[in-house]
């Protein structure tokens, strides 16, 4: 009898583990309705929408709770550089872009826990009101130290970090098709230890 009970409990535990694991993976990795990628940046057209499917709702609840629908704001996220490698605070990156077609835009850096990284550098975000422009665009250094960069996103204590791009009151063309927006590039410059 004990053997049977133990067997049943083991089956239950394995099933629960498989179920939770597959749910986490599905929400994290699979492409569901509305998810689009633009130059390494990802967005979901159904974020905040009442039309969102269960997986999108779960992903938004976990990674972007209280996000606005795209008629108000389009959010893009990325956790890899232009070569597809994970963004890592051990490396230095160059972010280059132009003003985006929206009333206001920003690029914000989050640590691996999805919050602002624990440092007092005051460089968690660059935005349309404060970015220093050069020519027809801007360039920012994404690194632990600022150096002589005009714009800086600090990666101090950020670990494997990610970036969020916000377009508030996006132009109608972006609302209709966010995949056509020309978004900033993120190039790796160097890594500690020459990785």
């Amino acid at each position, binding site marked *: 009898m004990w053997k049977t009970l133990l067997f049943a409990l083991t089956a239950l535990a394995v099933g629960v583990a498989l179920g939770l694991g597959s749910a986490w993976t599905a929400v994290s990795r699979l492409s569901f309705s509305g998810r689009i990628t633009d130059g390494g940046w990802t967005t979901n057209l159904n974020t905040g929408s009442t039309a969102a499917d269960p997986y999108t709702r779960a992903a938004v*609840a976990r990674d972007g709770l209280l996000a606005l629908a795209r008629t108000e704001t389009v959010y893009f996220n990325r956790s890899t550089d232009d070569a597809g490698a994970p963004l890592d605070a051990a490396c230095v990156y160059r972010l280059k872009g132009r003003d985006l077609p929206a009333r206001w835009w920003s690029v914000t850096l989050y640590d691996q826990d999805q919050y602002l990284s624990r440092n007092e550098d005051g460089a968690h975000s660059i935005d349309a009101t404060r970015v220093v422009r050069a020519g027809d665009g801007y360039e920012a250094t994404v690194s632990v130290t600022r150096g002589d960069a005009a714009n800086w996103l600090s990666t101090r204590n950020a670990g494997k970090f990610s970036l969020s791009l916000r377009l508030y009151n996006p132009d109608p063309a972006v609302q209709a098709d966010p995949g056509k927006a020309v978004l900033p590039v993120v190039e790796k410059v160097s890594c500690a230890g020459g990785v």
Partner: protein
Amino acid sequence: MGGTLLRWLLVAAVVHGAAVLAAPSVIMGKAIARVAQGASGVNRFNHQPPVTPQSRAIVRPSPDLAYLSCAYDLTNGPVRIRIAPWDDYVSLSLFAANTDNFYTINDRVMGDALYEVTLIRKGKPIPEGAVNVVESPSVKGIALERRLAPSAERFALADEARKQSVCETWLASEPARDG
């Protein structure tokens, strides 16, 4: 062995579906509780300080925005929300218990005067004198004011302006009309 595998898969499928379906409401429920705790109750705005690395109640907050959050509860009737004007972007957004952003309005529509919204439970009577009535699909949810304030100076001004913003229970003495 085949039967065991089938049992594993059956349990896994049920847990998978339940986890995906329940996650939004569970996570939102915790967020509603945290916002209510921060405001010392429901139907009150929580005047949040500037977003810093210590701000860990809601994931991926913007350090460029001044947030006011209110955990609304329509159990005892409608809720009145007033948003103070601002000389830049300001919005009110409403989120249902399942995370849906079912209503948003910004300064382009609100104009430069105090803007009032009456939030009622879907299908319930509308209070006499209510303006800009919005129906909530759930009894509980979160009302969020976002005010663009990317610098310390702008945040100080936003903090002053938003003192006029209100989230409050519609007084019981105010009569209701069918609607």
